[in-house]
């Protein structure tokens, strides 16, 4: 079931210019998302997963510089789109966003209803390109849409909720609202950046279940970034793991966990607390992106590194069915 690609990132390099020098935050990243799939982007702090998500949304920080590469979305390169075009038809419309922190992502000064109305005014699927007036016909249709969506995300008393302020509702409910707001513009791609990190486990289970169901119903694709491999196991179809600004391995969810091919993936999985196996961490630390090691970026912490790993960057190689790895010495049996 190799479906067509909705989004593909090709050779993307992004640098952040900082006081300490140039940080190579993304280095020739290749990555794709298909129609209707939930694509997991996992990795530890500072691996570049949030920067990749921001690059796709076109909201990189001011000191960022796109050095090379393309982000193809439905055939056109998002990096070469006019800013007005991106604002009008891509950001918040065709590609929407669920933030990590439902506590700081609402304005505390406006009621929830006012914030959703502002969203719909500019991002409703009903809005014609360039339309500035928010006429009564559209307001009426949008309100019905909103009520239906609040039902769909299982929020109690939608009428009452719209009059409330963000601090008056719980964290779980705020995240349900965020998901509702991300889906209201009927996007093709939802970027969910650690959407359950700030939530308790029972609430996380509810939210992941909801997200999975709504995505199946709407047919949208999701880019799900997380550092929580358990959450990725729950809802992702495929997973890419990043390390120090590069994708290390990409695989369907089952073979990612069963047959990791990259030594980093293997070590990451071995670090998870499980019932019967000893805990094995990864000695050393993630390299500085200001001055990443030559050759393979993981080699200083890798137990299977050899001479070649010290000076030559590995290319991405196909290991098995839809399984690709960036390593000179992938684990045998991995990916098969």
């Amino acid at each position, binding site marked *: 079931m190799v479906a067509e690609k909705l989004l593909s990132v090709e050779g993307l390099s992004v640098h952040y210019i900082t006081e300490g020098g140039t940080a190579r935050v993304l280095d020739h990243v290749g990555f794709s998302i298909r129609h209707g799939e939930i694509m997991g982007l996992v990795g530890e702090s500072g691996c570049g997963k949030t920067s990749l998500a921001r690059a796709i949304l076109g909201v990189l920080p001011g000191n960022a510089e796109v050095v090379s590469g393309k982000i193809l979305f439905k055939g056109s390169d998002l990096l070469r789109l006019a800013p007005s075009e991106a604002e009008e038809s891509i950001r918040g419309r065709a590609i929407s966003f669920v933030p990590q922190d439902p506590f700081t992502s609402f304005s505390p000064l406006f009621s929830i209803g006012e914030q959703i109305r502002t969203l719909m005014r500019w991002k409703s699927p009903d809005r014609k390109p360039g339309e500035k007036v928010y006429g009564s016909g559209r307001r009426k249709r949008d309100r019905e849409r909103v009520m239906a969506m609040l039902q769909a995300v299982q929020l109690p008393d939608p009428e009452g909720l719209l009059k409330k302020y963000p601090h008056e509702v719980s964290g779980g409910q705020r995240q349900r609202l965020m998901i509702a707001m991300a889906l209201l513009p009927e996007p093709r791609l939802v970027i969910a950046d650690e959407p359950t990190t700030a939530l308790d*486990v*029972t609430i996380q*289970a509810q939210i*992941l*279940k909801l997200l999975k169901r709504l995505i199946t119903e709407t047919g949208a694709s999701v880019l799900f970034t997380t550092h929580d491999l358990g959450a990725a*196991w*729950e809802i992702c179809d495929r997973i890419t793991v990043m390390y120090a600004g590069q994708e290390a391995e990409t695989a369907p969810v089952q073979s990612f*966990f069963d047959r990791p091919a990259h030594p980093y993936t293997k070590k990451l999985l071995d670090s*998870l607390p499980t019932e019967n196996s000893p805990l094995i*961490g990864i000695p050393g630390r993630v390299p500085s992106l200001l001055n990443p090691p030559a050759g393979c970026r993981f080699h200083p912490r890798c137990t299977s590194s050899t001479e070649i790993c010290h000076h030559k960057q590995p290319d991405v190689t196909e290991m098995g069915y839809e399984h690709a790895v960036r390593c000179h010495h992938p684990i045998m049996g991995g990916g098969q």
Partner: protein
Amino acid sequence: MNEDVILNVHQLQQYFPVRNEWGLRTGSLKALDGVSLQLVSGEVLGVVGESGCGKSTLGKTIVGIHRPTGGSIEFDGRPILALDRKQEKALRTRLQYCYQDPGASLDPRWTIGRSLEEPLIIHTNLSKAERLERVHDVLDAVGLPKAHLDLYPHEISGGQQRRIGIARVLMLRPNVIILDEPTSGLDVSVQATVLNLLADLRKAYDLAYLMISHDLAVVRKVSDRIAVMYLGRIVETGKTDDVFSHPAHPYTQSLLASAPRIGKERVTDHFWLEGEPPKPTDIPVACRFAPRCPKAQDICRKQDPVLRPIFDHQEAACHFPA
């Protein structure tokens, strides 16, 4: 298991006043409502629960950051709350609290060496040379080089900050350490090394841990026994393996069922618990879990269940335990 009980908490109660706009007391936030637990020398007791269940308040009340509104705490056979200031201070050196976020709890303007030495200056009569020797010993035990003593907290990584936080509470050679979310905010590869360090230190220094965490996989990995909290009460307690393999309380069942287990059946396919915990200012009468419990009967809405034995040291506060 009474022989070696080092920490005995009995019916601990911590009510915070709730006041209206005029500063008049209108009710209580019952953060802890009759919590009893015992910690045996050298063991690890994991306290799990979700935000607002009172697990952090429990740790802070035991260690004396809050004065409880009821109940008693015995440490090494002596009632802490009944002692005078001086005796209490001496006893408390052996009962230490390790803060959740060392990045925020270490003084940013102090070098790490100075932060580590401070407890020795306050609580002991050691000479400068002896203090330095102990600082070096402990730093070595947590696996950090001496060069770190001259650094400031922001100059080291999150995992190293955890190690310093742990080193700091080890300075006074405690018997019991209360660990508040010792691995929250750490990446898994670093988390694994911190958990291994805690296990090594427990053996080397003969420590008992009261480990407060929301991460069930971590608690399962390191605890001998666990206590599950919901809205200011312990609803189930027992040996870790027993509770994980046959949870008796419906809340424990839902909590365990909500944690993703890689390679196993997906939680999102069959998770059944609905709703969110009520506010601790508005606790349901009788059984606190009844409004969300699929097994709830009339009795659950009328009579408050108490912790009672179910199976070999496993206890649950439920009218219909599994």
